């Protein structure tokens, strides 16, 4: 479990990431464009985990990719540690604000090759066996070909590959969607031990129960808009906004 209570009691967090009036459109075939995200504003503070929840296609993944500039917002501003992100070398930004995609993509080669990819880009020393143990993979896998791993193992390897760069912000895109209960608990614990007062996590999940377990705050997204930014207590309270309750009822129905 996360040491949530330890952080939730702090009255003032310092913002690690701030975004203001973000919109994102993609050009269509003609002169028109489709807007995928509308005017999103908010912050991610050090020490906290924020869950992003919302129907499929509501723009959660697109939003995460804006925050480390894998995508460029059509309008709006983003700051990391108080700096406009276009003033930071983009590769450095991505090292510190790590995006981990929903589906793990492994580079051709061994497990060790995959762990080495980012580390080589950044000239880092690291202990591959130790990182495998942290994600509950056997160090004997180091010499195995990456594509011999199961889906869940690949997911955990991809996580280790990013974590060993020691990013301050984790942008996690449904990291447990392909995992069973055991694998899910493992990742939740791993992230909780990774988190400390100088770090923060944005965690996209489709599971309200998971949001309740891991997060201090919850964003509810719908059709490219950030509908609500609520503390976990408010999100699950009986006084929650109607739309939140409706969302939760619909979700409960799915389980």
């Amino acid at each position, binding site marked *: 479990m996360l040491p949530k209570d330890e952080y939730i009691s702090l009255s003032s967090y310092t913002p690690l990431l701030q975004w203001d009036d973000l919109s994102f459109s993609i*050009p269509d075939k003609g002169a028109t464009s489709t807007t995928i995200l509308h005017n999103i504003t908010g912050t991610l503070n050090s020490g906290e985990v924020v869950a992003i929840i919302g129907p499929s296609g509501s723009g959660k993944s697109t939003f995460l990719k804006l925050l*480390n*500039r*894998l*995508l*460029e917002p059509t309008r709006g501003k983003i700051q990391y540690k108080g700096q406009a992100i*276009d003033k930071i070398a*983009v*590769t*450095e930004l*991505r*090292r510190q604000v*790590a*995006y*981990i*995609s929903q*589906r793990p*993509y492994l*580079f*051709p080669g061994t497990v060790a090759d995959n762990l080495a*990819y*980012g580390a080589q*880009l*950044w000239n880092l020393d690291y202990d591959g066996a130790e990182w495998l143990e942290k994600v509950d993979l056997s160090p004997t896998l180091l010499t195995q070909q990456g594509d011999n791993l199961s889906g869940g193992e690949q997911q955990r390897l*991809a996580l280790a*590959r*990013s974590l060993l*760069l020691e990013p301050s912000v984790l942008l996690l895109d449904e990291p447990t969607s392909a995992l069973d209960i055991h694998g899910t608990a493992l990742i939740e614990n791993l992230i909780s031990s990774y988190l400390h007062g100088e770090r923060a996590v944005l965690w996209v999940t489709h599971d309200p129960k998971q949001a309740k377990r891991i997060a201090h705050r919850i964003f509810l997204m719908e059709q490219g808009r950030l509908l609500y930014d609520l503390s976990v207590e408010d999100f699950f309270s009986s006084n929650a906004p109607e739309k939140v309750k409706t969302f939760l009822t619909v979700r409960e129905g799915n389980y």
Partner: protein
Amino acid sequence: MSPLILLISLSFVAIALFISYKEQLALEKDLLVGTIRAFIQLFVIGYVLQLIFDLRSLTGILFILALMILVASQNASQKSSFLPRSIALTYILGALLFAEITTMGLLLILQIVPVEPQYIIPISGMIIGNAMIAAGLTLSRLQSELASQKGLILTALALGATGRQAASSAIKQALRAGMSPTIDSMKTVGLVQLPGMMTGLIIAGASPIEAVKYQILIILVITASTAIASITVALGCYKPFFTSQHQLSNYYPRQ
């Protein structure tokens, strides 16, 4: 060879026509059009070359070379699917020009080939023709690799790689695709088929050993020119697929 004999040789086409008619291949029209075009194109180029050889004019040589490079670039840029044709054309034009100037330049400077149109033009034709094929293969492979490696390339960018680093495996595959036909043909040359130029020299009365010397020279020159064309196209054409901020650009194939 007398014109009469050339006309009589049309009976070879009659054989093909007869087979097509008998087997209902419906190739008659293509055969006729092809035969007529081959006659016209080759005679036109023959007379133009004769003219230039007689004039021994530098402008004439440069004009012919420019025309060859232009037509070849136009042809190779048809391999462009995701990249706008005009951008592909620019890079390929540069690549073919670079290949021709480097290889022909070396041949002339080292005085391997005399500064005479009857050497420069046919050898340039082989340099440019092979560079054209290599450029087309490189471009089409580059695009298909970028499309199929999209997830991996995004992962590499997310780990802090530059566009160049993220695309390096696609670039390598494209280079191999562009260069390997020449390398393969080098391995079997003379065993399966005598190259056209050697055949021509021998028929025109050169000794086989003399013909072989020229053929070896040509093979080596072509190897260099395909390598130059491939590397120029690959290292140029990957660029428009990324933005200056190491994001996938709008040309990048969607999934």
